[in-house]
């Protein structure tokens, strides 16, 4: 076993972060569904890496294989330079894990829960320190059952941090939370990033991935269909903005083919009666669109624009929305 002290004394300066997690040709099938289909992935130390995809894309299965909770059918997982079949005990000491559906014991207090988890780890901060870190100081003696969703999620985070982990796994940390609680959690995760921890998180919120992740892998049907920084991925679809408009219930629907020819428009698609234009130059496309609609005599009932997001990347790649499933 490698203990922390000998690691520290053997430290050398590195210009490029080493690989903290490497997946090679990972496969996992359940009965008739292939959950993870030949995934290769590298997460570098100190990086916050996001697995983004709709429900059922294989994010959680991939994560649980990395966490040593599920055995892969084939392929290789190297985590912190170790392997689950030979170094499980040591790996467990160095990982911080937050699972998607865990309900912590309702009858225990925050402090008792954190103390329980702390007792499993050789090294780590004091329980009160961890509780303060996730801003539950005032709730330390409250029962878990009485906490709000956001507070429960922060407690789950505290339980993941008690061993001072080198690698943090967060499985949909903000799913089901209200916007304010989500932002609070994002702030916390950003603090861990600043402290140099390596994080692998799954999410089906594109805004979450864009804000938190240094790099993102977009998963669909057990495969990684795109990989890169959020900026790279958005740039890869060659679109900077999306213009969405609706002609209401006008008898005459606009002629879409003419819009395809307009300057700066890359793609036109219709969705739920709305028309979406993927454009590169917003300031040119919008006036052209208005002129074109005017020419066709189609009334405009709604007009919205937004910068392209990872959601648009997913839609472009799969033709579906992240939240459809």
């Amino acid at each position, binding site marked *: 076993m490698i203990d922390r002290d000998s690691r520290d004394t053997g430290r050398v300066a590195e210009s490029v972060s080493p690989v903290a997690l490497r997946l090679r040709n990972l496969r996992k099938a359940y009965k008739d569904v292939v959950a993870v289909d030949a995934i290769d992935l590298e997460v570098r130390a100190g990086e916050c890496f996001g697995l983004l995809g709709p429900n059922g894309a294989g994010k959680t299965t991939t994560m649980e294989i990395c966490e040593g909770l599920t055995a892969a059918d084939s392929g290789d997982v190297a985590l912190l330079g170790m392997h689950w079949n030979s170094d499980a005990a040591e790996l*467990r000491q160095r990982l911080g894990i937050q699972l998607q559906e865990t309900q912590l014991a309702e009858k225990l207090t925050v402090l008792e829960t954190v103390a329980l988890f702390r007792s499993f780890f050789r090294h780590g901060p004091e329980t009160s320190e961890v509780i303060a870190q996730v801003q539950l100081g005032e709730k330390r003696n409250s029962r878990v059952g009485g906490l709000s969703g956001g507070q429960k999620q922060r407690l789950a985070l505290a339980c993941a941090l008690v061993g001072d982990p080198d690698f943090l796994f967060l499985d949909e940390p903000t799913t089901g939370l209200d916007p304010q609680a989500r932002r609070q959690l994002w702030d916390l995760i950003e603090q861990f990033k600043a402290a140099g921890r390596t994080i692998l998180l799954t999410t089906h919120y594109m805004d979450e991935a864009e804000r938190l992740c240094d790099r993102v892998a977009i998963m669909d049907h057990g495969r990684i269909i795109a990989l890169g920084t959020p900026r790279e991925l958005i740039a890869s679809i060659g679109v900077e903005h999306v213009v969405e408009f609706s002609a209401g219930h006008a008898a005459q629907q606009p002629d879409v083919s003419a819009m395809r020819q307009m300057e700066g428009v890359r793609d036109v698609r219709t969705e739920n009666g709305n028309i979406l234009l993927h454009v590169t130059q917003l300031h040119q496309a919008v006036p052209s669109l208005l002129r074109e609609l005017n020419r066709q005599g189609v009334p405009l009932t709604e007009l919205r624009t937004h910068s392209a997001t990872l959601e648009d990347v997913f839609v472009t790649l799969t033709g579906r929305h992240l939240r459809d499933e």
Partner: protein
Amino acid sequence: MSDLTAFNTVPTAVGAKPSPRGAAVAGHPLVQLTLVRFREFLREPEAMFWVFVFPILLAAGLGVAFRNRPPDVLKIAAVTPEMTRSLHQEKLLDVQELSPAAAEDALRTGKVALLVQPGPNGTAEYRYDDTNPEGRAARLLADRAVQQAAGRVDPVASTDSLMREPGSRYIDFLIPGLLGMNLMGSAIWGLGFAIVDARRKKLMKRLIATPMPRHYYLLSFVLSRLLLLVIEVGALLGFGALVFQVPLRGSLLVLATLCILGSLAFSALGLLIASRVQTIEAASGLMNLVMLPMWIVSGVFFSAQRFPDVIQPVIKALPLTAAIDALRANMLQGAGFAQIGSELGILAAWLVVSFTLALSLFRWR
């Protein structure tokens, strides 16, 4: 590969501190896990009621309902003052002096069991229903009183030695039965529900994602069970001894060993029941399926001997029968290890078989 091995040189995250050595005991995972079990139990009022209060209420209720009454006093009627006076000498008779008409009426309506009236030539006449046992008993007692008052001397002198000792009453039979039932219920419910609940809430999966040694988790149930056992057994036996003077004739060491072995055997059975079940409903059904037959046939409330001889070997092999038989033998007859060897053997066999099966079937998620 070089960058993978180089990972061990990554700086440690800020805030890491080795834990102080003094906190080692309180911070031991087994201590923490056992504390959790205790806290969850103590904060569940229903569990407290069923484990501590219910057996005592049951014992009190049944103890009062089936208490041994003082011998019944028989009501009879006499029609003359002399006869009334001589009949008063018999303590087991309650004599009323009535007019002949009123006495006749009282006999007919069953208010008295016997009517004593003078017959011709100084004889005594007893009127009663000879199909009524009370009437026959009253006839014997009344006749003895009348004859002795008239000067009869019994040729053989006799004395009565009364047997109303603790140890042979219903409550003495009941308390060991309730104790056995309590050992079974608290172990099976306590373990079964807690384990299935933790599995259902994915708490168990979360725990095995930590470095927690898995056997500590199971061991914490055993430890908390044994500690609670002291309170459970103490409360019920203390109640029986103080309120009903239920005896504890055997050695307390044997009794303690028996309670611990019984509790462990039932805990193992609870673990087996809970080893794969995913829902509380399924667990509940399975537990009742296992426990209900034993409540009936294992002799909690009445002797297991009442069931046909053919099924006696099966009944004897049940863990609750073994536990209750051994508890009764120890508490009421003072049996030691040698006399309850076969019961201890049956409990040990249930422990080993259930535990082995449970471990191979157990699912952590």
